[in-house]
């Protein structure tokens, strides 16, 4: 492979990673903070648990299927937005924890 194509591929990969944003959602006080999100396909969302008790984060949206299982205190889990469908993220342990993720 010529140096030109190597450089081109590297540049494309760099551009792709640069355009994908990461959003941090903190699970604190039985709330997802900072709240609802607007994201794009390819973006990532990092869930971290700052509460002294366990949490969960999941969506029932099939094209963005995601479930962290048990999210222990201090643990971080990353999901990637795969599809252009908006969805809700909920905690299976605490019924009032819910945020909407709008996918643009």
């Amino acid at each position, binding site marked *: 492979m010529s140096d030109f194509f190597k450089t081109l591929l590297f540049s494309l990969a760099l551009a792709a990673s640069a355009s994908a944003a990461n959003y941090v959602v903190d699970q604190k006080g039985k709330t997802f903070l900072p709240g609802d999100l607007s994201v794009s396909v390819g973006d990532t969302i990092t869930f971290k648990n700052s509460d*002294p*008790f*366990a949490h*969960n984060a*999941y969506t029932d949206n099939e094209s963005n299927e995601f479930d962290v*299982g*048990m*999210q*222990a*205190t201090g643990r971080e889990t990353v999901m990637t937005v795969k599809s252009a469908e908006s969805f809700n993220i*909920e905690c*299976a*342990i*605490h*019924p*009032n924890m819910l945020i909407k993720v709008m996918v643009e």
Partner: protein
Amino acid sequence: MKFFLFLAFVFASLSASDETFDIGENIYANACSSCHGADGKANEGADFVVNPRNLSKSLLNEKQRFWIVKMGSRHWGSYADAMPAFGGAYEDEAIKSVVRFITKKFNPDTEARVKDLYSRSEAVSSEKFAQMLKSGEKVYKRTCHLCHGESARGDGLATKNSQKPIYPYNLRKTLLSKEQMFLYAKYGGEFWGSHNGDMPSWSAKYDDYSLKSVVLYIDETFRKKDKRGFSKER
């Protein structure tokens, strides 16, 4: 003559009733009030592993209360509850008298309240049994198992991954009826006198049908009736 005999009978009954109440009050003052408080509302924040229940909000009926007092709440599925068994310290009659006192003094309308709330919930046809079991299993495996565990023994992953301890019930042992379990899930523990707040109200997330379905699933999968009419571990 018959009239006087009748009066004597009424008087004797009232005296016996008063006596029972007095005995119960005395036992309550000596054995119960230090945890549950003189007013039955308990004290939040005292040095308990699990805070005592507010008896004025409890959804238990007298029969259930008797067995909790006699056997202790751990026997009925509470893991770390400080409520000990009093069956070794008191005869059944004494326990009945304190239970009578608690009911009359703090919570005389429990059964009517439970019945009323349940009657206002969405009615579900028994023809939907199979459908409800399936729906209940889905809800249980989505949410309940994280705290109550895959086998409903109160040992879900959330109990092992918390800095702050939580004590979910072993649902295989609980003496609550299906109706009471539904109301507990719908309104949450605090509504029914728990000071710990670990069991949230699920009404914002699940409708009555879903909650009745998961109770049916728990009952059919993990419990069976024993000779006292309560559930018992399979």
